[in-house]
């Protein structure tokens, strides 16, 4: 296990674009700029090497220094399909299908690496860009080469300037990109900025906000060109498939879901943990290894995620199929554990309040509906209403009505709260709180968000599945400056 410290500081060129952001649901504690990183089997291995290109190439001499231009795009798509590589940004769309679609569409394709997580609870793409940027760029370059693309755009989160610096440093090291232009773009500091259509808007020089799209970006994306846009981790996984081959890639994970996946486990006020696990790994030991207590439940998939009860979490594995069967979705791999005795109603109210403030205010149902939803949920939390009728009616009203899935994602956590925690909700409706957490709830109304108390910060080395994690501290220490999770 390693410990990545990214001290708060000035943004690139002294530019701090933090001013307009409305903050995270965890208030001051989220200024914590540290992320715990476990050494992992593939993406996160050899962390002590540092992020440089030299060691990256020495570790894997057969790597994609200059992938053969002649590599047929169909062959690449076959590789991606053979391991069923799906997008790791949340939508889980098969990358092979994007690549094939882009091949058939008119125009010279463009590749977009989306490392702008937007969601404050997610850190995995930032960690990847900070520690293993060349794996991400290898994957993007391989896809770009196969497609005959002219450009690779790397989009970094505005609120994490260290990530931008790491991306720029990595790009400057790569002199072997041929006729592919690689550029870095800084997303705005807001939740919806990382949404794929918002990213394309940013690249087109327009406001970094989601828009209604008529056609898939693989058909007509940036400037009308076929655009293969995927999450940073997706491209890193693609690099592994291309470099190591299908058999090696499938050596980890399960038959149905080969390979590994990055997770971010929220520290409930303490620093989050990023780790890489093989598909099929049981969730319980992973949570135990990071001292996370999910006895009450787990919000799986981040702020747009789904609540699962503690007993369900105990039997779950890291598998999209198993998680779907449990009624949730793994999304971008964000896990928000709810410690024993904590209140899911309050926690959801805090998150929904934050999400309402993160609306781009462009689509009426989102602009007006989300604040109304947040208010209705606060009323439930305070017990000033006797039923959830208004809350449910509002949820129905906003669902499916907007350019992006921000409204739908917001109602998802509310719906699952009502489904999974009916007793806790009923307790609030009658003016009490099973978790004794009404004080915290009251605090919320004043706008002062109280940090949770879980997470002693004591991290233990653990064995997750077949992977033993290294406990040595790695020498990255201070990777540039910039607030990691400090989304101000």
């Amino acid at each position, binding site marked *: 296990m390693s410990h990545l410290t990214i001290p708060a500081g000035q943004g690139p060129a002294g530019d701090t674009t933090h001013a307009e952001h409305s903050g995270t649901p965890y208030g001051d504690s989220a200024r914590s700029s540290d992320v715990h990183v476990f050494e992992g089997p593939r993406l996160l291995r050899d962390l002590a090497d540092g992020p440089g290109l030299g060691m990256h190439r020495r570790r894997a001499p057969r790597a994609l220094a200059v992938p053969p231009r002649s590599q047929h795009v169909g062959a690449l798509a076959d590789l991606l399909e053979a391991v069923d590589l799906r997008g790791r940004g949340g939508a889980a769309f098969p990358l092979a299908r994007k690549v094939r679609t882009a091949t058939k569409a008119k125009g010279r394709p463009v590749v977009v690496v989306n490392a702008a997580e937007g969601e404050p609870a997610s850190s995995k793409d930032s960690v990847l860009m900070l520690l293993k940027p060349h794996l991400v760029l290898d994957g993007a370059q391989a896809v770009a080469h196969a497609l005959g693309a002219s450009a690779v755009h790397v989009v970094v989160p505005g609120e994490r300037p260290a990530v931008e610096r790491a991306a720029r440093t990595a790009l400057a090291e790569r002199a072997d990109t041929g006729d592919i232009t690689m550029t870095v773009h800084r997303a705005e500091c807001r939740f919806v900025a990382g949404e794929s259509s918002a990213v394309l808007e940013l690249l087109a020089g327009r406001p970094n906000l989601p*828009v*209604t799209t008529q056609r898939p970006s693989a058909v007509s994306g940036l400037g009308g060109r076929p655009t293969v846009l995927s999450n940073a981790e997706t491209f890193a996984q693609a690099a592994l498939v291309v470099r190591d081959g299908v058999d090696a890639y499938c050596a980890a994970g399960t038959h149905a879901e080969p390979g590994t996946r990055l997770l971010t486990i929220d520290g409930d006020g303490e620093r989050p943990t990023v780790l890489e696990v093989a598909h099929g790994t049981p969730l319980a030991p992973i949570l135990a290894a990071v001292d996370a207590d999910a006895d009450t439940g787990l919000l799986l998939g981040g702020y747009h995620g789904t609540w699962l009860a503690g007993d369900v979490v105990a039997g779950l594995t890291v598998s999209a199929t198993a998680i779907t069967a449990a009624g949730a979705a793994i999304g971008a791999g964000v896990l928000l554990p709810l410690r024993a005795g904590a209140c899911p109603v309050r926690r959801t109210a805090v998150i929904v309040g934050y999400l309402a403030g993160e609306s781009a205010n*462009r*689509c*009426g*149902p*989102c602009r*007006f*509906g989300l604040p109304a939803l947040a208010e209705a949920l606060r009323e439930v939390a305070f017990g000033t209403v006797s039923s959830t009728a208004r809350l449910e009616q509002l949820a129905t*009203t906003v669902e499916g*009505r*907007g*350019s992006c899935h921000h409204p739908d994602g917001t109602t998802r956590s509310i719906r699952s709260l009502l489904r999974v925690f009916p007793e806790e909700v009923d307790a609030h409706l009658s003016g009490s709180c099973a978790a004794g957490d009404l004080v915290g709830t009251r605090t919320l109304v004043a706008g002062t968000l109280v940090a949770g108390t879980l997470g002693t910060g004591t991290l233990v080395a653990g064995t997750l599945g077949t992977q033993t994690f290294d406990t040595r501290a790695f020498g990255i220490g201070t990777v540039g400056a910039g607030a990691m999770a400090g989304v101000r």
Partner: protein
Amino acid sequence: MWPTGGREAQQLRVDWQACDGHGLCAELLPEVVRLDEWGFPVVDRPVPAGLRRHARTAVSACPKLALRLQQR
């Protein structure tokens, strides 16, 4: 039930960023469009073939050009 005329059903789609909640669509096509509590359109059924002309009127009358008639 509205007569379908044996043709494929069409759907009104709202461009949510463009829509400003003027509400003309609900005036012109109340059979298909109602307004939510903030005045934004709720389209919860396809356009029956018999109302297609009215739907086209609603599309062209929208002051923000925020409506489209699409094949389902």
